[in-house]
């Protein structure tokens, strides 16, 4: 008899979760479908066409865009460039931001000021950001090389040496997203109950032990979010390359990213079909990486 009641309650609970669940996600899913998912499907569809302008005169060409894609060396080089960028930008920006967020989460003088300062790069107009970094990196007149020269080192071609430029761009990327990561970490840190630290302090744990034993596990859901979104965003790097590397730079072939090429084909050369094929390739890659992260999170993300 008791069992039957239990079962009834479970199904009732399940039904209620189903109803509430769908009610809660309905606005988001409806909007997402119309605004995003349908255009994505159209893009995938477009990748099988030789596209005409203004949505007219599309000719179905099957896999031709993909054949061209796989034979196109610049695409594979762009893929390597994109990965190089992501491998530098993501870990550094996360590590630095986490340290800063933890520091700024405790009571100290000037905390609000620091928080505002680290956030500043996010509000500056991208054009201004690109300009100032272009000057800092300028091999002839730039500040960085001035400093290097004055301590007796040789100038570095930060933005025109094909082997270096992508990392210079990554530095700009790190500088730009620290504020983003920091705000998220700060928000995550707020949600860690204070008593945990108090208990640890009573147990005699020092700051470092507290950081690794309490902060890191408890902030791991936020961390997971930051990692997933940063990986995706860094694989879509475009603006900084577009604004800082000249079209006739020797470094361009070794810095242009997949989205850069997508932009060039779809918006400059008006070849939407080929551009779409590039997007599909990028989508596949990001999807695989994200799925791996979703699976791997079970190993390190600590949910209550």
């Amino acid at each position, binding site marked *: 008899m008791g069992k039957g009641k239990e079962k009834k309650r479970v199904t009732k609970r399940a039904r*209620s*979760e*189903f109803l*509430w*669940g*769908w009610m809660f*996600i309905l*606005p*988001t899913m409806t*909007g*997402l479908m119309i*605004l*995003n998912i349908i*255009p*994505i499907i159209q*893009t995938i569809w477009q990748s099988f066409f030789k596209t005409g302008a203004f949505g007219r005169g599309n000719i179905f060409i099957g896999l031709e865009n993909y054949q061209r894609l796989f034979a196109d060396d610049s695409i594979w080089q762009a893929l390597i460039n994109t990965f190089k960028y992501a491998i530098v930008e993501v870990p550094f920006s996360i590590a*630095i931001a986490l340290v*800063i967020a933890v520091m700024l*989460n405790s009571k*100290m003088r000037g905390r*609000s000021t*620091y928080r*505002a*300062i*680290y956030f*500043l*790069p996010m*509000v*500056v*107009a*991208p*054009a*201004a*950001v690109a300009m*100032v970094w272009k000057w800092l990196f300028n091999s002839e007149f730039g*500040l960085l090389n001035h400093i290097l020269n004055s301590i007796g080192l040789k100038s570095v071609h930060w933005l025109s040496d094909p082997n270096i430029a992508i990392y210079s761009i990554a530095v700009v990327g790190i*500088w730009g997203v620290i504020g983003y990561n920091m*705000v998220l970490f*700060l*928000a*995550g840190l*707020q*949600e860690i*109950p*204070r*008593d945990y630290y108090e208990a640890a302090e009573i147990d005699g744990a020092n*700051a470092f032990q507290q950081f690794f034993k309490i902060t890191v596990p408890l902030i791991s*859901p*936020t961390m997971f979010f930051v990692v*997933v*979104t940063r990986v995706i965003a860094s694989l879509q790097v*475009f603006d900084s390359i577009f604004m800082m590397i000249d079209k006739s730079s020797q470094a361009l072939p070794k810095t242009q990213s997949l*989205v850069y090429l997508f*932009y060039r084909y779809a*918006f400059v050369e008006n070849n939407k079909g080929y551009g779409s094929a590039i997007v599909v390739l*990028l989508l596949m890659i*990001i999807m695989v990486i*994200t799925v791996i992260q979703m699976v791997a999170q079970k190993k390190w993300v600590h*949910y*209550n």
Partner: protein
Amino acid sequence: MRRREKTLKVTKHLVLFIGAIIMLVPFAWMILTAFKTNTEAMQMNPFVIFPSEWRTESFVSVAEKMDFVRLYVNTLLMILGRIICAVLTATMAGYAFGRLRFKGRDFCFGLVLFQMMVPGQIFIIPQYLMVSKMGMLNTIFSLVFPGLVTAFGTFLMRQAYMGLPKELEEAARLDGCNIGQTFLHVMMPLTKSSMVALGIFTALFGFKDLMWPLIANTEQNSMPLAAALAKLQGQFASNFPELMAASMIACIPMIVLYLIFQKQFIEGIATSGGKL
């Protein structure tokens, strides 16, 4: 022990200070440039760090060229619309994805992630066609339109809810709360910081979004700030002091907004310490 604490504190301040300087360089440069002549601003060799004379002409001419009141109002309405939509839809969906179990949940969440995996540029033309069919081009609605829902925010809120302790929810259920009540009375208040973070980012992304308003809101008086700024850059020649002066005037409200929001973080510490 005491001594170690002290060295730790000093290191901390030192690290933060040096970091802050690096963060500030471009900003300082922006301010300095706004006061230079265009020649000084363009000059590379020798590079001019301080303007020979602190000129305010750029601010004056920018204020004449741009109707800042109108632009602020448009931007504010756009940001407000986007924040309301994003926070409401994402909080609900985030709770459902993070705390409830139901059929179709994982598939739907997959779609949410899916949206984030493609470069945003592909949405522009399809969304333009939708807004144009509705006859809503050049309105505040069209500025808000791409931000009606947010995959980013849904994901963010889901993570926030997943990190909350289970006990609270169970306690609420035993008190006889249904799911809606549990969400409203117990769970949602606990994710305030994440909601604030979402608000900040929604405002920021909306503020920085350039391509969409340039294409959907071409009329002078329906533009947001960022788009009007982008217009200042001519195709070939550009006036950098003016551009920087305009950028400065433009980003002040964003900084104010952030300062207001960030107060919430600090308040967050005070309350969560006692109430949890």
